[in-house]
């Protein structure tokens, strides 16, 4: 399994989906739960340690939201 986020793609076997498509369709996919967990973990690990090429963000620069109980989705 290879996840090439730098090009905006998730590659799994013969299947190519964009990250956005993956997120949008995550609950309606033919992936097994184990595969979803694996991809989720790899996405999280990637996002926690990398930046997105050509995005303008510096290496490991991140976006955080902090606040009260109405912090974005909470």
């Amino acid at each position, binding site marked *: 399994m290879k996840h090439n986020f730098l090009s*905006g793609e998730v590659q799994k076997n013969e299947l190519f989906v*964009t*990250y*956005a498509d993956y*997120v*949008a369709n*995550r*609950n309606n996919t033919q992936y097994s739960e184990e595969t979803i967990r694996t991809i989720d973990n790899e*996405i*999280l690990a990637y*996002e*926690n340690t990398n*930046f*997105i*090429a*050509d*995005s*303008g*963000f*510096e290496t*490991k*620069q*991140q*976006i*955080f*939201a*902090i*606040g*009260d*109980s*109405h*912090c*974005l*989705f*909470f």
Partner: protein
Amino acid sequence: MKSIKIKNHWLYGMPITIYTLLREGLDIFNIGTNLENHQGIFGKGHSKYNIKEKDFVIFFFGWNDMQKNINLHAADRWREEIDDLLQKYVQTISMSKGHIIPIIANIYPNPRAGADLQTMRGSEEERRNYFLYANDVLRNLCAKNGILFLNLYELVADENNCIREEFTTDNIHLDGNNLKLVAFVEDRIVKFCQSYL
């Protein structure tokens, strides 16, 4: 599509109002580092934020102040109280410039009918007056102080200034399990941040 995950969690031990934020302060580079025992309760795996120099930090405070405390403590002088509170809020956050890239977000709208309103103070109209006024004040103060202002209000509010029905399951909060909503909002925020790089 380029994307970057946004860490957005309300953490145990965090100030839950602007008032407590100003009174108690916040060690922004050590959020959650002493909260291992609470991990999984509020932090959901992101209890250790590890905010670093130059990171974008979006401040989402004010909802509890507007929904609960303004009416309780300053109903007869709410404009003056909001002016004073938000001026100190923006000034405090502006002091972090040079270390982080601070962003102040708008205050979210009223809960929908059916929400648990036991802790709210003031009528729906009064609370609506508070946060609409506060968002105007915040926008102006951010402009004056050179702070980025993130405005998601039109996205999350309906025509009655309540949180949109399709985006909430408890009639109060945005639904973090709505993955299309999450992806859309995060993409919008990333583009917002990119525009200031």
